């Protein structure tokens, strides 16, 4: 049922549509079972960013302080979005990997689940 408002057909403008981000799109990245980083990290990136550049150039700056980070075997990492699991092609862009504006990417690292195996750490 539509909202009840004084103005007929009231509708707010989309404040965060992709055209407002100066050529970037918003990507949120969450490392599962490592809740020391306690929220999905929101970063603006050009849609043409290769997925490999995300892994090599962006993630270390965000998650590098975690002792598990250096131990990650990236070939074993499992990736997913709200649409389900996916296998990224590192050479292709975010968009070509199906990562659109405001997509949240979650990744899990088999065998690595936080400091001393405590998933919130």
């Amino acid at each position: 049922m539509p909202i009840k408002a004084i103005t007929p057909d009231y509708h707010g403008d989309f404040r965060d549509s992709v055209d407002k981000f100066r050529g970037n799109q918003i990507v949120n990245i969450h490392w599962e079972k490592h809740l020391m980083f306690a929220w999905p990290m929101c970063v603006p990136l050009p849609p043409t960013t290769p997925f490999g550049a995300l892994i090599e150039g962006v993630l270390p700056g965000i998650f590098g302080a975690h002792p598990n980070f250096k131990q990650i075997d990236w070939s074993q990492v499992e990736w997913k979005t709200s649409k389900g699991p996916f296998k990224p092609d590192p050479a292709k862009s975010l968009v070509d990997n199906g990562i659109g504006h405001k997509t949240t990417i979650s990744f899990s690292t088999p065998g690595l689940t936080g400091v001393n195996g405590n998933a919130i750490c």
Partner: protein
Amino acid sequence: MAAEGNAKPAKKLSLKENYALLTRGLGWEPSYEKQEEIFRNISFEGIKIHDWEKWEDPFRLTMDAYWKYQGEKERKLYAIVDAFQQNNGQFNVTDARYVQALKIFINGITELEYDSHRGFSMLAREFPGVGPRIAAQMQSLDELRHATTQIHTISQYAKYFTGMNEFPYQFDRAWYLSIPKSFFEDAVTSGPFEFIVAISFAFEYVLTNLAFMPWMSGAAFNGDMATVSFGFSAQSDEARHMTLGIEVIKFLLEQDPANVPLVQKWIDKWFWRGYRLLSLLATMMDYMLPKRVMAWNEAWEIYYEQNGGALFADLARYGIKPPTRAPETIAEKGLVAHQMWSVFYANRDAVGFQMWLPSEEEMDWMSEKYPDTFDKYYRPRYEYWREMEKAGTPFKNTTLPQLCQVCQWPCLFTEPNDPTTLSLRETEYKGETFHMCSDGCKDIFDDTPEKFVHAWLPVHQIYQGNCFLPDVDPTAPGFNPMYEALRYMGIKPGVDGGDFKGSADATNWEKWTSRPANIHEGAYTDAVRDTGNQSDVARKAV
């Protein structure tokens, strides 16, 4: 003279007559404008009112009596505030750590009192019934009084401590203050009936006991005479507001059965929104009070599970059910305070108050209060962070969060029954993705996406380049967007936030009072007199 002598004195009105004249007698029937032209905002929400005269004034308070009572309370309060200031009462609180909680209060809560004043002014204009208009007018004045008295009581602290001198400026800009701001602006921009159900019932009646009972007891216990005097002064107003809240619900439900589903929907929405806002209180109670009165989970049991349970049992006869998302609040009562403190700590350089890790003794208190969750999940996290501090590489998060489109908290909450998995929800609406922190917030978005698509989410605003002062050149070499965004928000990086130890507040406190700035850690500096206690002895030995 003779004529005057013969005149009988005017008959003294009975209380009942006086009351009738000074409330209902103040209204009139319009003769040259249509009723619906005067009260234009009363029908669009779909609430049906057949007889405004059925409104029972819960307090039988007339305006003249109102001014008299409020005037007396003000005189008492300001006498205490004077004494507090003249006696340097700001140094009688437990320690400077306590003052960090006051920063959240003045920056995040006081403005809500002012917004509430605005909201009730609108109701006083919009309701056709005289009874509720007068009640709304009184509450509007109460809320304005609460805003001003809070500012006056806390202003003394602002002379001695950082982070409290820019509160109206920060409220409109600081990234985490969009949480309370968006809460109240959602209410104020609703129709008059949704507003009064949201604020008078869901917030004031069901939830604010949590703020007024344990929090004000905490202020008293920690020697904060200014805040607790404000609390006492506001208490009788709050009692009146709560009674208004329950009267509103009964009136709406009794007027027409068609009102029941609308009221239920608003209760579901505003219970959840109020709860999410008050989660802040969870961390203030459990982590910020140096001397604690009760834990958040205990407060939630008493003030929601027991009191709220009885309330909703009582409302069942109207067909009203407990809020749909109440079970989640109960399931996560052992989690929220810890999740929130951890997030504040990790992001301490980006907030306007200082942070610390809980001491061993404090963690023991939490183990006792939260036997199912603290030792298993949160203690190891704090112990690890403590090690990192000792190693000289303290943990800091430096990346901005994904925010909830509705409550505007970062998506930091976990599934209510699984502290190791974030509760991430999203909706695709007209081709765009929107994120929510919980099922409660997703319910709200999905019901009225039209209202939430244009939420001012600070993180996205920063990335759109809308949070820099005019003197900033984003193309200049060395441009630091986070530093500049904080400056825009009125937060002085390195002064207002950061680590409590070594902060100006902690150092000044020890210099001015010769007492430890954090009673749980012993002295930070040599300014603290040797009291013979173990931490001082240990420090001197080092």
